[in-house]
């Protein structure tokens, strides 16, 4: 069963908290990972490893560059879930 946008944001927020200590509530759709949440490339890579384990998705490097906001990642996860169905 696919997760809703809200559920994905919540789970992503927990991952961001686990990796960086940034409160999950700060992870909202409009936030940019680097500029707004101050997440560096190494922490971002950690978040993606955790996201892979949580959502079963893999984001190729060439796509990653296009995904700068929480909304971008959430949309990507939703899209992959659709494909899986």
């Amino acid at each position: 069963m696919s997760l809703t946008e809200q559920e994905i944001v919540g789970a992503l927020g927990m991952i961001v908290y686990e990796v960086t200590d940034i409160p999950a509530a700060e992870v909202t759709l409009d936030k940019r990972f680097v500029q707004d949440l101050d997440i560096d490339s190494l922490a971002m890579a950690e978040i993606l490893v955790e996201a892979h384990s949580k959502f079963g998705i893999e984001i190729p490097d060439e796509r990653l560059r296009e995904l700068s906001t929480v909304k971008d990642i959430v949309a990507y996860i939703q899209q992959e879930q659709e494909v899986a169905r």
Partner: protein
Amino acid sequence: MRGGRRRVMVTGLGATTPVGGDVATTWSALLEGRSGVSGLGGGWVTDSPVTIAAKAAVDPAETLSRIEVRRLDRCEQFGLVAAREAWADAGLGEGGVDPERLGVVVASGIGGVMTTISAYDSYRENGWQSVSPLTVPKLMPNGPAGWIGLEFRAMAGVHGMVSACASGADAVAYGIDMIRLGRADVILAGGTEAVIHPLTLVAFAAMHALSTRNDDPARASRPFDKERDGFVLGEGAGIVVLEAEEHARARGIRVYAEAAGAGCSGDAYHIAKPNPSGEGAVLSMRRAIADADLSPSDVVHVNAHATSTPAGDVMEVTAIRKVLGDHPVLTATKSMTGHLLGGAGGVASVVAVRTLYDRMIHPTANLDELDSAIVADVARGEPRPLPGAGPVGVLSNSFGFGGHNASLIFTGV
């Protein structure tokens, strides 16, 4: 200055060891002769001839943040804990030293081996996407130096020495050189290690290097004793703050001791076995004494490498007698802490400095009967007052697989 050369002082100490989570508790446990060795518990290690080790008395997770514990390998965690204590002890705080004049030389003999093993397990079980991007920063042996440099903004140079069990002492030796050469005014120097894992345990056991006294852990590490049968693996870190004399004077900070000299040598003999003649150890000790501008008679005490291996302890005492004669009082910190490998030289430096500062030598534990091949005055039973008066010298030895020898000399101020 002395003889046209900058003098180097020790102004801060930090340690986390199997007998205490900081310098004060470590030092009091050593004076009491309390062992930090214990059984690893049923199920922790199977199919191993060795089931004992000296785990750190205080888990670093108790003092570090959750994120630090996540991002740092255990050896990096120990290093950071000890470095913070040393930094605070030296009163450096904010602005105590210009970052461009601050350096770090912190060793690990092996690096983040536990990270390496768990990352490989993860890779095999769950594929490459499961491998943490922190794997490399956690496994690299220079990782502890890197994190400490980051914490205190050290910009004069950040180095990690790798010379097995001589690493920590080599780090202090290099730190002394950096200050003398004018490359830095303050150096955080020492070593850290965290390799208590089933694989490392059986790997050292495969070399027949470890004690198999599993039924009596607290008495397993027994340097110089007739019944010793190998070393006990330990973990933790020891860091000293080395500071140029004029820099320390200008800050008006308490000086524990002078880091008066260092000597290093290579055995050129065997990859793991000590040369029974002690030639390499003789060279490192003689070089340290000459570097400190002392005479052998000035060195009243040796904090021996003394790991409790049958061959190593005899070799070291043979070498000490060749260089210093019979007068110095010896002690073996590893009788209680076990062997911290790359961390050992850092902890030994902290202990040697406290010995000078408190003028008290901690006893060697478990020395019931001196090996007949060892002729030495070893402190045992009770702490022994440091002999002599005035600025006497204390020598600390560290030797490592690979034929690395490092001797350090600290003098009272």
